[in-house]
């Protein structure tokens, strides 16, 4: 699942994290990044907040009923 960074990651030292540096950099850049459960659990243990990116549902086109 993809996540976006909310707060706290900039205060952590990347070399101490198991989450790959590239993912950390991309999160800090505001990108949506694929994270696994371990990554998310590691962030939770540090109070780093990320939120899952919700996929926008395609809007259903309204079909006018012909009378």
């Amino acid at each position, binding site marked *: 699942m993809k996540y976006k960074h909310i*707060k*706290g*990651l900039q*205060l*952590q*030292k990347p070399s*101490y994290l198991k989450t790959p540096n590239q993912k950390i950099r991309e999160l800090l850049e505001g990108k949506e990044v694929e994270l696994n459960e371990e990554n998310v659990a590691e962030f939770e*243990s*540090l*109070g*780093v*907040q990320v939120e899952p990116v919700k996929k926008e549902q395609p809007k259903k086109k309204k079909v006018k009923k012909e009378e």
Partner: protein
Amino acid sequence: MAISSKVYGKSQYAIGIKQKNATAFETAGADDTAYQLLPVINVSAPVLNLVESGEIRSNNAGMIETDFDQFRSRKGGFVTLDFEVPAERAGLVRLLANVLQDHSESGANPYVHTIEASSSAALSRPDFTGSSTAGIPSIFDIGLYGPASGEDKIITSAVLQSLTMNFDMTDGRLLLNGTFYSGFASSTGFLVGQTLSANSGEPTLMSTSPTQIESYFDTKQFDVNGSATDAIVTAVSFTFENNVARVGRDANGDAEAYAFGVPSVNITGEISFMYDGNYNDGANNVLQDFLDGTPATLTLQQGDGTVSSVGEMNITAEVYSTAVNYDLNADTGAIITIPFKVVQPTASGSPSGTAFKFEFCDAVTNSSW
């Protein structure tokens, strides 16, 4: 006897501290305790303040003091140990809680710690022999690691007498310096010639991911004419002094308790910031505030102000400036420096609001370690 060619370097010495429940106040520090490293750069030696006197007595025509004119006793003495250490996340709260003897903690991994002196949570004078709750009363045994077996020392039931937090923007990190105090100087309280055995004779780390604390703030505001105003801070420091002193003398000559905060706990400090559009000598500004003697609220925050991620810090202090100093010739531009003392604000004659509040989020508990 031939000379010894052994040479020792500072990195062969170490200081370890370990919290203990205050109910064990009179119990000597142990040699098998897993002391945790105080990551000092320069290790200092303990200073033994013993009861001493020595003056020439009568019946001495030679005019030189004799050896039996001298008196020295470990009973009734005290031990101090100075240190300076770059602050690490896992150790900061432990030291600050100890010097102010206040601490509360919420959450678990991460932990949010609060140390507070306010109208709703006033500092409380601890009973140093009572049971510790949330790590308070906070006392440490200290292991002083020597370079070889049998050369270690133990200081029993130490409390920080003073602590300075110095956010130096030039050094780039928070530096702590202070003095431990122990009222145990007897042969059973201050132990020499020891072999500290836990962890293969080395202090353990407070955290396996030691992280130093940087000197910067996302929010840095100081009152000007009663309004919180953003400042470009070049340095800020706080000094905490609690006037801890030994009380009584047991059968060994050691302390039976400590007096704390008698007559007061003093928090002082100094803040330097740029002389600029916000802070200057205009009407209703820095100098006028000082002349008026109006306390100001100092707010310093690392993070977004909601302390919930490891590393986030809030400091709030009600400060009463004791001078306004200028360095108009500084290389980086004119600087105003305000020494201050922290005071408890009041409303209608009663304490109201926060004198000092420190909140910090880290990954270790301070209640028991």
